Structures are given as structure tokens and as C-alpha cells.
């Protein structure tokens, strides 16, 4: 059961959009932005408000990679594995990140909720390959060592705040 504050916040988000089927994706998007994930309990609530079935809401929300039902870390690292990044050795970068953080293709988020490591199909930054993003910031021409360095910086940043 979610804390009532989640519903208050959701009401606030819902009030910004017309109560129609087409508002579903923008609403889930804003929920994702707010919490870094989509608390699954909110889907039936949203569905009811905009007049669709919870099955439809789940169908849409589960389709998009961008929406996650699992809470994500403070830093979401998206390693590009599109064609250009892949041929320029994005996998060793991914492997280094995962081994440093104890993550795998099943476990994406560290227990301290600091890091989430995912792959994306293409960031559209092929000239910077191999690239990755930390939250909204792009890091170009990555190597495994640069990845280790990046994690160190991010940890320091986290300890300061």
C-alpha cells in the first residue's frame, strides 16, 4: 500500500491533463520523472481517472523501456548499445560498470539506491560513440577506465550533497 502522499501528488499531476485516454503517456511520464519510477499501484488509479481499463494502462506502461516499475537509483546510467557504440566497444564499458557496482543484466540498481545501469538502443549521439548518459547528461567516447573514473566522481558528488 502506498503512502497517501503518492496519491496527493498524483492528483496534482492528473489535474494538469484532460481526463482522457490520450493523457495516459504524459501522465505516466510525469510520474516517472517525479519518482524515478512508476509505482505500479498508481496505474489503476490513473486508469480510473482517465476512463480506461487498468489492463490497458499496464499494457502501455509495460511496453516502454523508459517507464520502470522498479525504483531506480539517484544516478541512472544509460549505456548506449546502438550499432555505432556497439562496434566502438560499448560492451566493455557496460561490463566494467556492472562489475564495479555488482550489477548484472537481471539486477539493474545498487542496494544503496545510488546507481542504476541500463542499456539503450541508441542515444542518437553516434558521432560521440561509445556514449552513455548519466541522468540527462551525455558522456562521450567512453572507455572502461573512464567509466571507473566517472563512478568515482559521481560517488563524490553524492557524498557532498
Amino acid at each position, binding site marked *: 500500500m502506498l503512502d497517501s502522499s503518492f496519491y496527493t501528488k498524483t492528483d496534482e499531476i492528473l489535474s494538469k491533463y484532460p481526463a482522457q485516454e490520450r493523457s495516459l503517456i504524459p501522465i505516466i511520464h510525469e510520474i516517472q520523472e517525479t519518482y524515478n519510477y512508476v509505482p*505500479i499501484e498508481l*496505474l*489503476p488509479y490513473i486508469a480510473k481517472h482517465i476512463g480506461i*481499463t*487498468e*489492463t*490497458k*494502462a*499496464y*499494457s502501455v506502461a*509495460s*511496453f516502454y523501456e523508459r517507464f520502470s516499475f522498479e525504483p531506480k537509483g539517484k544516478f541512472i546510467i544509460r549505456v548506449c548499445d546502438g550499432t555505432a557504440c556497439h562496434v566502438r566497444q560499448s560492451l566493455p564499458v557496460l561490463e566494467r560498470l556492472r562489475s564495479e557496482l555488482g550489477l548484472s543484466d537481471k539486477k539493474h540498481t545498487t542496494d544503496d539506491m545510488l546507481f542504476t545501469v541500463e542499456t539503450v538502443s541508441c542515444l542518437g549521439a553516434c558521432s560521440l560513440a561509445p556514449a552513455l548518459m548519466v541522468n540527462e547528461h551525455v558522456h562521450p567516447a567512453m572507455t572502461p577506465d573512464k567509466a571507473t573514473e566517472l563512478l568515482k566522481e559521481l560517488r563524490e558528488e553524492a557524498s557532498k550533497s
Partner: protein
Amino acid sequence: MGIMKIDGYPVEFTDEPNILSVIRKAGIDLPTLCYHSELSIYGACRLCNVEDDKGRMFASCSERPRDGMSIKTSTPRLVRYRRMLIELMLASHYRDCTTCVKSGDCVLQNIAHRLGVNSVPWGYRERRYEKDFSSPSIVRDPDKCILCGDCVRVCEGIQGINAIDFAHRGTDAMVIPAFNKHIAETNCVNCGQCRVVCPTGAISINTNIRPVWEALADPNVKVFAQVAPAVRVAAGQGFGGVRGENVMGKIVAALHRLGFDEVYDTTFGADMTILEESKEFLEVFKKGGPFPLLTSCCPAWVKFCETRWPEFVPNISTSYSPIQMLGSIAREYYADPAHNQGKKVLSVGIMPCTAKKAEILREDLKRDGKQNIDYVLTTQEMITMIKRAGIRFDDLEGEAADMPFGMGSGGGVIFGNSGGVMEAALRSLCEGSDRAEIENLRNSGVRGPGPLREFIFKYKGNEIKAAVVSGLAEADALLRRIKNGESFYHFVEVMACRRGCIMGGGQPAHGGFRTKEARKHGLYESDINTQIKKSNENPTALAIYDTLIKGREHELLHSHRH
């Protein structure tokens, strides 16, 4: 309107919605996995692809016919393409075909045979998901799903339920209830229409064959069956018989041979339903409301009303559905040691319906905590049992159903058609046995095509406004109009399945337009051939009011829903 060329032959078309229909009209049965004329067009399976004179390939289901068009339906390229599609589908399909419940009746399997797919070059898929046995009506086996979406579209588009839908994507894509819940935890109404359209074994009937068979073999158990009206016009299809032919005589004979001690006719129960429901209607009509009175025969509809329209639940007739009527009365009858001969009694319903499997478990239909019917077997399960026992159905000589519950009226037998309950109820209000009056009712609009029919019936100088609706999405829209005051009726019949029980979730699948029409006419013809037309003139039904019911109508014949 126009003429197009199909494989070099000119074919005229009129209002066909797509090229596929024209091709099939021309006598070419293109394989499809996602096309059903009553569902929205999806274009996912691509098996109906054709080639035009410029060598372009497109799906014929989602293209309109145009005058002067020339298409080919099975060029070597198309044949190669179709075979490749099936190979890919089989590669991602959990292929335990020899032991699959759908084996022999599987559309995917049949098409693979037809197209000569003899091997699958991409390996074998292991089981990944658990089967879902949570529902008393259907079993879900997601490993068999080929993502054609037929079930999703029938559940959402025709039934307005949307209990299942696509989720996830790519190789993880599957059809599941929201949040991967069990189907029994959703708003599923158990109608089984998903199972009817499912081309594979991904959705099948939750079978009760085993316990029934065990009881049949037990000399200390007296097993009786009742056979619903719609079963008799569909069962023949399972044995390669004529579409829509009434094979009740052979069904009774086959069930006797399987070891059922008595075989009764649910038409008798239908007459009981009419006797009680028409009384109820007249009371409401005289009292001036609350309108409309809603029929109670269809359990999928009742569940739908309870979950979606709770405010209309008090309008649903409390009269038992036919199966419950017969079940309840037979229970009374067999309570007598002279009838049970000291044996345990097992009550089985042979139904066209998967939702009846859920209905018999309902608390409001139990008496003294005990179910009125022990098991429901669908038409399809009965066919399976007859085949398994090696009984040659075609060679059987027909037998009459057993007394005292083996006789029904013409009104009772048409219950299996959409509009049949309404017609039987209003027929019982007709004065005497005036043929002209019964004929007028027949032509009043109660019969006919389309999921919604509205008409007026004249009763003793008053007008009864009635509506007949089938398909729950249509019923949903109707209730909304009633609630908003846009429509008014005194009496509404609702059946969850389009065209009624003849197209129920437990019937033999793969019924096209001609099958649907044939089943409908089969029941109407059975009515014509029945001496007693009106439920309230069935002497065997009337007699039990004195012998068995003895003033306990409320206890024995009515639900305690409210």
C-alpha cells in the same frame, strides 16, 4: 462494386470490406490467424498476403478491393513467405503438440500442415511461463501464445471487458491480465470467447472430464446429465456432421452409452425459468417498475452487471437460469430414497458455456451450502468424451431424453438463440394458443440480425417495450443509455455471447458465418417441430408445482442475490 482478377479469374465484388473476403468468396481459402470478420482488422499474421500485378505484396485483410485490380494468391514467393512466417511462429511457440489439448483442432497446426512446414530451422523453445488454472472456466497457457491478439480484441471490442491485453515487448511480449494477475482475479466474466477465437492451445477450457468419468464408473453413484438447447445444434459438428443439425437424439444415446443413468433436457429448466420470470415480469409491470426487468439466464452477463453496473443488479430477475432450475428440482426429486436408490447422486450439466462452470459455484445459487449442479461439461468436452470412449456418434440411433425432466416446449428450446428468452417469455403471455399471435411475435423484431434489437409487444391493450442485446460491449452501451434516460424499456434480455448460447465459449470453435446461421436456424426449426410451443403449457413443468415445489418457489427456484 466492381470486378477484380484473382489468379487470372474475374471476380465480382460488391460491399466486401476487404480483398480477403472477395478471395474467400471466390472459393480460395487463404490461411489466416488474426482475421475474424466480427473483430477489428489487425493485420498481424501476414498469412493472407497477396501479390499484385506489379509484384507488390500486401495483407489482403487490410486492403479494400478496387475495380480492375489484379492479384495473385499463391505465387512461389508468397508460398515461401507464408511458410517462413509459420516457421518463425513455431520457433517461438512451445511445441508440445502431441500432448497439447488443442492438438487436432489447432489452427496453427493445421496451417503448418497445409503449407508443408516439415521442420523448424531455429530450434526449440522451452517452457517459460506457468499455466494459469485460477479460473473455473478457462486455462491460460502463455507459452502457446502466438500474439495474434484475437482474444484481446474479442475481450475488449465485443465484450467490453479487456481482462487481458498485450504487455511488455519484443521477445518478452505476451498477452496477460494487468500486472500479470491470475485471470480469476480480474474482471473476466468467464464467457470463453477468447478461447473460441484462440487459434492455438494458449487459452482452453478448464475441463472437468476426469471427475465425471470417475463417477460414471462408480456403481455407487447415480449420475444424471442435463443437456442445454444450444448443445444439440453444435455437437454434430464435432463428428463431421451437418452444420446446425439438431442431434439431441444421438447426444442422449451417446450419454447413456457413456454411463449416465438419466439424461434430461435443460429445455425443461428453460420452461421453468419462463414460468417464474414471466410471473416476475407481470408483477413488475403491474407495479409500474422498477424497469427494465433484466434477464438472469446468462452468468457472464450477471457477473458483468455486478462488476460494471451494480446499480442495475436489483433489476435482474431472481429466477434461476435453466440449468439451476433443473438442477434444483432434480435435487429435490433425488432426495427421495425411491429415486436415489440409496446411492450418491451426481448432477452434471452439458452446456455450450464456459461461464456456467463458474455459475454453479456461486454462493447465492447454493442451497444449504451445496451446489445445485456438481459439474458443468461444455459441448466440446462432451464431444471429447464420446470420441475417447470410441463411440461412433454417426451410427447411433437417436433416443428420447428421460422423464420426468426430459420434455420441453418450443419456447424453451429457442433459449439458445439471442432473443430466445425474450420470445419465450412474451410467448407465454400470449393468450391461448393462437398461432397468429405467436407468429406476430416471431416477426415483431425479436428475431433478426444485429447485436441489438428493439421492439414493442402488445399485451392486453398495453405496450411492452422490449430489447434484446448480445455482446457485453453492446449491453454496456445500452445500460448507459438507459441510465441517462435516453432509452426506456420494460424488459431487456442480455446474453454475453454474440448471437447467444449457440456461439458460447464451450461450443466447437471455428464457426464462420454459415455455422452461426445454421445453428440459429437449427434451434428455430426445433421449435417448429415441437408440439408444445409455450413454456407455460408444458404439462410436466406445471405438474411439479404440485408434486415437488409445493409453494417453495422462493427457496427452490430463485436466487438470493438481493
